[in-house]
């Protein structure tokens, strides 16, 4: 009787939603890496909720100049102080994650849309195509990602889509490498061979047999991609290739740098901490998931 119930559960996990819930439940279950995932999840959850609720909870408009005195240290009226243009830092912190997170989500989606099919096809087909694609990907992988991002943004201009493209261009090779090495192993396994021998089409084999097995590693790469994307966006902001008109943690650091000589620590400390927290949150989740994969 117990056996039957167990089977029932396993059948149900084939639906997409139950399957996703199953994945979440197993990621949060006891075992190594659990606390990394929980801690990272709480940090990211907090930041996402804060960004979504920004219009409701921010005390001032984040871009209005001189809502208070300029360069004011934290006080009762402005808990995190004001910047050199008299803008309220607390409001800027609350709003400051929106642009970065949007860029990060778009970049990750782009990477998935480009990297996964290329990785699958290249590794599965092999031969000359695989060699050429690998060479191209390796040459991009070996190059400092920030340099490519600077060139792309510097030439195409600053906006969310271009930043996402710049990040995707430098990050697709990472997806490609992970996916390719996994597919090369999986495609030699007996069940893939079995599928081939009963005449399954390549598309079916890739989609139904190989893709589900590489997904966990893709998720690990995607979480690091989120962290790197936030750091890259901040780096571009810092060298002046950001949306300087938006409330943004990286942009605050760009302005805060000018106020550093007068010791206005509050302009950089809180924004910088938010960037660290976001990257840390995704880094923790990624580490936890990777550890879990190692155990299996």
């Amino acid at each position, binding site marked *: 009787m117990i056996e039957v119930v167990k089977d029932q559960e396993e059948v149900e996990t084939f639906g997409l939603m139950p399957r996703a819930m199953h994945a979440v439940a197993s990621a949060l279950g006891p075992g190594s890496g659990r606390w990394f995932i929980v801690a990272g999840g709480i940090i990211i959850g907090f930041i996402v909720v804060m960004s979504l609720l920004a219009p409701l909870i921010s005390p001032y408009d984040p871009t209005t100049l001189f809502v208070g005195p300029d360069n004011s240290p934290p006080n009762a009226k402005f808990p995190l102080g004001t910047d050199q243009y008299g803008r309220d830092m607390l409001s800027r912190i609350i709003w400051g994650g929106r642009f970065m997170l949007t860029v990060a989500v778009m970049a990750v989606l782009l990477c998935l849309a480009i990297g996964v099919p290329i990785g699958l096809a290249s590794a599965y087909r092999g031969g000359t195509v695989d060699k050429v694609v690998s060479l191209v990907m390796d040459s991009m992988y070996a*190059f400092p990602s920030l340099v490519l991002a600077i060139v792309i943004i510097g030439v*195409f201009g600053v906006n969310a889509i271009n930043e996402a493209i710049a990040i995707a261009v430098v990050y697709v090779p990472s997806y490609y490498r992970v996916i390719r090495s996994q597919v090369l192993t999986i495609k030699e396994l007996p069940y893939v061979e079995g599928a081939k021998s009963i005449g399954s089409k390549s598309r079916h084999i890739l989609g139904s047999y190989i893709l589900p097995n590489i997904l966990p590693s893709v998720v690990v790469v995607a979480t690091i991609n989120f962290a790197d994307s936030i750091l890259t966006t901040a780096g571009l902001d810092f060298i002046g290739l950001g949306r300087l008109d938006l409330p943004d943690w990286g942009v605050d650091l760009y302005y805060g740098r000018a106020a550093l000589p007068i010791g206005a620590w509050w302009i950089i400390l809180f924004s910088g901490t938010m960037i660290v927290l976001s990257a840390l949150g995704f880094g923790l989740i990624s580490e936890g998931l990777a550890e879990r994969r190692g155990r299996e």
Partner: protein
Amino acid sequence: MTLRTYILTRIALTLPMLLFLLSLVFLVMRILPGNPVLLRFEKNANPALIAEYTHRLGLDLPLWQQYVNYLTGLLHGNLGQSMVTFDPVANQILSRFPATLELTIGAFIVAAVVGLVFGSTAARRAGGKTDGTVKVYGILIYAFPIFFLGMMLQLVFGIWLRWLPIAGRMPAGLIPAGLNLGSVHIQTGLYTVDSLLAGNIREFFQAIEYLLLPCLTLGLVISGVFVRMTRSNMLETMKMEFVTAARARGLKDDTVVYGYALRNALLPIVTIMGLQFALLLGGAILTETEFNILGVGSYLVDRINFRDYTAVQGTVVFLAILISMVSLLVDVIYAYLDPRIRL
């Protein structure tokens, strides 16, 4: 495979990579609107003047011809002239390179020391509290934007405590002389080396003072990656028979871990670290900008704002060649020291 064939194969594999990167940057820079000539003049400037400048820069030629010209020049070691100042790009890059080199070497030393100490300590107590702490350090330091860490260090050590300078490489106007012996004149552009060559110890320590914060900033951020590499490499080594044998002989734990395992793992670890040179160079861009160091990285940032095609292209090509050469060099030294690699 002999060492010679190995080196030749490596070079043969590097060339198409370089060509691909170069072509990518060439194309991206040209197919888009906004060029250096238009950026130089107002919208209503004399059309004849614009035409003359466009011609002088070779921008009126068909794209394929510009590409061929550029490649031909490159083969002769010519990176072209700046489209804004008309100076040879190669000279400008070379004059700025010593600053970048000094910064990256210093940062590498910081990162390698932190990486080796933390990484081997973590591996020694794998799974324990120390290991967990080191792991969290790795994730946390990786999450720090380089310039944010730089600003905080500047704030604390430069502005509040006033212990260290926060910008530039030397006090204004001071450039170490290098070696001057009759007709022999050696000036490397590396301020630490030049001041020593000139026999000026005070300038040497001054140069070090200026280097401390930037190198610490870049080195610490990179150290997270190095800690991780050291740890996993040490774990592999500690599973080997000679380590078990050393333990079986009753040697002290310290001696086994540092005297046997680390000593043997050191070469591969430092090799992998050397291959992370691209990571250092990428970080150097932000560090140079933050600390006002006139290096190759800040040159790139500076030139991109002027749409100086040839300068940006030249910098990218220069960095790509540099990275390939370093990884080739590291590989060859390693292959020379460890013949198993060549098999």
